[in-house]
């Protein structure tokens, strides 16, 4: 137990102030979006992630938002286990035809108001897979999409920037 406590004390809290890497507006945007989330979502934006056919790279980077460097929860953003609890569906992959019905059912199960964010190059335009006998291609071919975060996969920084920009629109 001493070793454990000592390690905790020595490592400390590594969570980074969200200093933008390229965009000096981001910290300001972060504060604004936090205000938006506080006002419109009572301080918490609930996200249900849906892999609709991805290669799993996007999932790795979305999961990294929970590591102590990004700690997306401090912005009021948290990932929920059920679409019933979600405000936002974060959808990855070209939508495989075998996931089309499940994705639509997940959307139906999400209460209004709700937003769909397409994450990754495949979700944006079909990417390396496009549309074929097994793939519907872009998420936009299946659902109305409110925002797109490109990248193969998008980095955690790009994911946060994309999420913030969704609600920064007037």
């Amino acid at each position, binding site marked *: 137990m001493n070793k454990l406590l000592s390690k905790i004390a020595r490592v400390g809290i590594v969570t980074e102030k969200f200093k933008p890497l390229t965009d000096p507006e981001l910290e300001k945007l972060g504060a604004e979006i936090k205000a938006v989330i506080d006002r419109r979502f009572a301080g918490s934006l609930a996200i249900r992630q849906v*892999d609709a056919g991805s290669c799993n790279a996007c999932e*790795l980077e979305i999961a990294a938002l929970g590591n102590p460097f990004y700690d997306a929860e401090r912005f009021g953003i948290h990932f929920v286990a059920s679409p019933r609890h979600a405000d936002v569906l974060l959808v990855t992959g070209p939508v495989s*035809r075998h996931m089309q019905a*499940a994705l639509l059912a997940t959307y139906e199960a999400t209460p209004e108001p709700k937003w769909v964010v397409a994450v990754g190059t495949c979700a944006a335009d079909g990417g390396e897979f496009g549309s*074929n006998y*097994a793939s*519907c291609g872009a998420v936009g071919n299946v659902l109305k999409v409110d925002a797109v975060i490109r990248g193969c996969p998008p980095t955690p920084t790009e994911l946060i920037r994309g999420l913030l920009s969704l609600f920064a629109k007037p």
Partner: protein
Amino acid sequence: MNAVPSSNLKAQDRLASCLLSLGTAGFAALKSAGSTLGPALLCVIPSENWAGAAELAAAGDCRWAAGWADEQGGAAIVHALLEKAGDYLLLRTQLPPGCNELASQTPYFPGAARPERHARDLFGLDFLGHPDSRRWVRHQAWDERSFPLRENFPLSGHPQPLTPPDRHYAFASARGDEVNEIPVGPVHAGIIEPGHFRFLAVGETVLNLEERLGYVHKGIEKLAVGRDPESLARLAGRISGDTTVGHAWAACQAMERASGIEPPPRALWLRAIFAERERVANHLNDIGMICNDTAFAFGYYQFSRLRELWLRDNLRWFGHRLLMDRVVPGGVAADLTAEAAAAMPAAIASLKRELDELKPILDSGPIFQDRVVAAGILPESTARALGCLGYVGRASGIDWDLREQSPYAPYDRLEVHAAVRGEGDVAARLYLRYAEVYASLNLIEACLGRIDDGPIRAGWHPPAESAESLGLVEGWRGEITAYVRFDGKGRIARFYPRDPSVFNWPALEKLILGNIVPDFPLCNKSVNGSYSGQDL
């Protein structure tokens, strides 16, 4: 009984001598005299001998390493890759035109069950004597009389506007007052890939588990057809996003062997550095997630922190956090700069120090140990029967690592000693990863010490018409195989990648038996099969 044609007897004799040669000095002699496919000796047999060949191979303790179908000139061709003591034998048979029936090898090799169902759904082959007649990768996106990998099936297919969900799949059932049936998925609670699990439980105890996969099938094998080498490497790098280096390397190795192209030495050292960095990143992730699944938040915090630092180094030094598109036909697309070469040893030393410090903390966490020790035991006999690979096989006593037993460049110039354990439980799979992280760090140091100067990519020239080969790489999950056949224009005619998950997923159905349902996430994470890599 019908008389056996004498040509079949000859084929049988040759098969027997090939099988007997595996793992002996005679194998090299047979290989130099016969035809080969990459490192494998090719043995063409009549289709009547297909089951007999499997029976002989099973009796000779061979491992069934992969199986796939192909079509040339309207005739179906079926392959089975066998391995013993590091030697590979590729069985091939061609069915008479119009014939789609072949004996199943599953009765002799249980691991062949899903690959044969995959070939049945996509090629329309009927494997006689197969114990399971249910569809596998096919759900409802195409009908049971259409076969997407046949030449006459268009890539676009004939999809309906809305593909219905795959209802009425005949899951195993059980009756009784105490039995609960629990359906889970395809959309899971966490940030993970989709698939369906059907539990039969008595109280909390798992009586049976059936996996229903195929949800992320997106036509990778069909999409490969007609691609040029560069574009195939990009596709291979997206078979399973966590194994982008491993799959791209296997595909490139196969294409390079088919074309007779040697990547420059520096490129091979860099591929090994990328592959070991991929192994470290994934193992750190899994160790952290296993801690998380036992509610040991400290472990998740520490290992996810170490992984993030590692990925940031990937981005800084090689231009991509997951190293996508860094392995390309003929070599690599990112060089080792002087800055990276100078900085990497310190990052490795620092990671080793932290791992040294964290291991006793895991060891002495009583709740953590209580969860992982003796949970999800996979006996060695089951692992062998299924052909389990990588850390799943090695944690159950299977001493098999391609880098050690059948090394490809540059591992033929490195010392690899795979860690092996015998317990087969979640703890064994966890600590095996721990040992592999250290081993990979040592390998990266060795690569850095020995890397040659020079170019990082060889020029490409198209291979001969119908040139084909096999790529074999030890990915972070275990052995990856990739089969490539070219057409007459230097483009891909057939690509079949076999992810190790194909053989590790069925193990999860076995190791969960008798455990409690709440331990499923933990057991699942300890195996961590790729959905995308198995569904293709």
